[in-house]
């Protein structure tokens, strides 16, 4: 017994020692981990349950001048279906209904979807593709379809949201509005990418239930800065008009591409800018910003520049005559020809512009500047046409003018330059020049953006002022002469086909050849000008590149677009004329009226009309339904039915008047 007891005590003692030892080891190990690796493990825990979360800055919007949204960020939805989740019974009962609805929505046959879903069911597909890039109303519609309306867990409805940049107007001004993503950064979106984007913020967050994260502190580690809104100068209505006017001409002439820009004369604000290029299937869309990037040979629209320089240098005056016969002129080894073999004979320089005579202009410039061609080039530089406009939109084409004395200069350069060949400008640069003529010589930079404003604080907007490139491109006298000639181009010159007595257009036609060294040569038909002539409000350029074919003249191809724009603006500018509306209160007149009304009320009793003017009495009685016969024309002296006698419609009554 005692041995047994002793044995137990011994064993218990051993066990106790062992347990204590174990405790000590554990305590030691805990302290060791706590002290030595504590920080590391704390960090690991934090990493799992905490994160520095990015707070995305809201990207700014792009607006038109009238407040319409041109570009904004929004959700697009992709829908997939977890077919394996859907209950077999539900699928069996509702598959037909779902397929029918999907078929209606996507324009397929119900069988197509039925087959697709059944196959997915057999394959236990948990991620069957249904549709992508849906807008919210469409997404909502699909969500309400049978099976899908059971939600994610029962109906297997899977939604994936993507933030995309949306252009609510679709194709309208797409290239000018632009974008800023992996494809590049064209247009306004590209130019103002930094402003629009804003800066993302950071915030420390802790993991909580349902996959959500809650902020740990009350402040953000880095505050996000929302992107700013860009308010452009584009007028949506004008853009719409110009877009469709240009599109119509492009389709008519099977053009390769074309551009049209409308600018407000005084401010340089670009109200509409359309760029349309042809696709393989002969439709048109905004593929490139031709107005900004494409430097082309302007052809005859450049004659205005030559005229302006010659007038400013006082080497000619507009009444001076030039002999253009026989319709061509030999310069060096080449011939300058007037279009279609025309022989205009001896005409004034002013008329040479109106008729767009190449011979007239070649003679004018060559004869006056061939000794010192640099003087003519100095004229171009004085205006500023040799410089880029430095518009914010990326990719502006550089103007090109050959320099006398360099290898690019030849004996024919000057003569051909006078009517716009051998040089390059972009449509926007050409328009800026014509705009300056309309703007009393003040050359302003084309403006695409009116202001940049904070999303929720419109007061602190950065407003972009009108920038002046050249305060005076020519004297008032020269400008007045040029304007008058441009008016006559439309009134009795090459563009008389677009003349209208209702609104005064001024401008210049142009036709040149492009890519004539390639297998795909084209005519460039253009028209540049402004309206109304008296007090110019808008300037406009239309440039259309068409394949070689019969009608390629600027006036016929580009002119109508210009005219349509001008006509539209004319038709929407209403005139107000005031007329006087009297409010006369004459007591004497009122008394008479009240007596008349009083009698009229008692329509079943013969009134007393004695003493009333005859015509009044007739009107009164006839209105009561009586047949009136009368003698004389003055006041009523006698009536055949006595006053107070009941009457019926159709009764006859005789009146004797004075």
């Amino acid at each position, binding site marked *: 017994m005692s041995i047994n007891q002793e044995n137990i005590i011994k064993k218990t003692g051993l066990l106790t020692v062992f347990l204590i030892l174990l405790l000590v080891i554990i305590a030691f190990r805990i302290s060791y981990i706590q002290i030595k690796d504590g920080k590391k493990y704390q960090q690991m825990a934090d990493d799992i349950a905490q994160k520095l979360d990015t707070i995305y800055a809201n990207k700014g919007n792009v607006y038109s001048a009238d407040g*319409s*949204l041109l570009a*904004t960020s*929004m*959700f697009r939805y992709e829908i997939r279906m977890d077919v394996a989740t859907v209950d077999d019974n539900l699928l069996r009962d509702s598959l037909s209904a779902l397929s029918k609805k999907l078929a209606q929505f996507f324009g397929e046959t119900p069988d197509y979807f039925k087959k697709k879903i059944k196959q997915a069911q057999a394959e236990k597909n948990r991620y069957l593709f249904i549709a992508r890039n849906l*807008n*919210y*109303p*469409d997404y*909502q519609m699909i969500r309400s379809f049978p099976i899908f309306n059971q939600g994610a867990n029962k109906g297997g409805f899977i939604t994936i*949201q993507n933030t995309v940049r*949306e252009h*609510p*107007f*679709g194709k309208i001004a797409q290239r000018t509005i632009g974008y800023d993503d992996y494809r590049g950064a064209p247009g306004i979106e590209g130019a103002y990418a930094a402003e629009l984007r804003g800066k993302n913020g950071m915030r420390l967050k802790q993991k*909580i*239930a*349902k996959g*959500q*994260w*809650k*902020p740990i502190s009350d402040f953000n580690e880095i505050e996000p800065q929302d992107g700013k809104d860009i308010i452009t100068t584009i007028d*949506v*209505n004008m853009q*719409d*008009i110009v*877009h*469709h006017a240009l599109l119509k001409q492009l389709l008519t002439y099977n053009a390769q591409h074309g551009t049209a820009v409308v600018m407000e004369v005084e401010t340089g604000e670009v109200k509409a800018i359309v760029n349309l290029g042809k696709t393989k299937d002969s439709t048109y869309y905004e593929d490139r910003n031709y107005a900004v990037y494409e430097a082309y040979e302007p052809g005859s629209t450049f004659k205005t520049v030559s005229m302006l320089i010659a007038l400013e240098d006082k080497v000619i005056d507009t009444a001076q005559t030039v002999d253009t016969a026989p319709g061509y002129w030999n310069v060096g080894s080449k011939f300058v020809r007037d279009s279609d073999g025309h022989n205009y004979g001896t005409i004034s320089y002013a008329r040479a512009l109106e008729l767009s005579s190449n011979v007239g202009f070649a003679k004018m410039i060559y004869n006056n500047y061939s000794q010192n061609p640099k003087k003519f080039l100095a004229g171009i530089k004085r205006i500023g046409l040799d410089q880029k406009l430095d518009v914010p939109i990326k990719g502006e084409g550089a103007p090109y003018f050959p320099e006398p004395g360099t290898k690019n200069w030849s004996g024919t350069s000057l003569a051909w330059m006078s009517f716009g060949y051998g040089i390059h400008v972009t449509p926007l640069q050409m328009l800026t020049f014509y705009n300056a003529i309309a703007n009393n010589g003040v050359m302003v930079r084309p403006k695409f953006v009116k202001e940049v404003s904070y999303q929720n604080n419109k007061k602190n907007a950065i407003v972009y002022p009108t920038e002046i490139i050249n305060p005076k491109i020519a004297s008032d006298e020269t400008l007045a002469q040029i304007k008058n000639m441009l008016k006559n181009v439309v009134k009795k010159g090459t563009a008389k086909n677009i003349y209208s007595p*209702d609104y005064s257009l001024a401008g210049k036609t142009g036709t040149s050849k492009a890519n004539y060294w390639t297998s795909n040569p084209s005519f460039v038909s253009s028209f540049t000008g402004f309206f109304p002539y008296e007090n110019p409000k808008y300037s406009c350029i239309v440039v259309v590149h068409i394949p070689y074919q019969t009608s390629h003249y600027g006036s016929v191809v580009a002119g109508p677009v210009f005219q349509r724009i001008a*006509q*539209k603006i*004319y*038709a*929407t*500018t*209403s*005139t*107000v*004329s*005031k*007329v*006087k*509306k*009297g*409010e*006369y*209160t*004459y*007591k*004497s*007149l009122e008394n008479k009226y009240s007596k008349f009304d009083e009698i009229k009320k008692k329509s079943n009793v013969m009134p007393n009309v004695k003493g009333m003017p005859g015509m009044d009495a007739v009107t009164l009685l006839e209105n009561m339904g009586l047949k009136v016969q009368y003698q004389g024309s003055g006041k009523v002296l006698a009536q055949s039915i006595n006053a107070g006698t009941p009457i019926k419609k159709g009764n006859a009554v005789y009146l004797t008047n004075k």
Partner: protein
Amino acid sequence: MILFVIALLLYMIRAAHRTDELVMKIAKLKKQENELRAEYIALRSKTMRLKMETTVMEAVKDHGLHPAEKPAKIIREELVKQKDE
């Protein structure tokens, strides 16, 4: 004293849970906001396109309507008062 500490502790736990609830609510509302925004933009694009002149022109073409060729003349009345007495 102990009771007070316990009360404080309970309040702290409550507050922590409340925060979690708020975070969930914010997430839900945020989602709703985005959805409403998406709906707003989708509908606005539609109305903007509908009100464009060329759309309207196309829509009323069959009724023989087209935009005016000449500007509207607005006649405004001016009131003139006269009495005889």
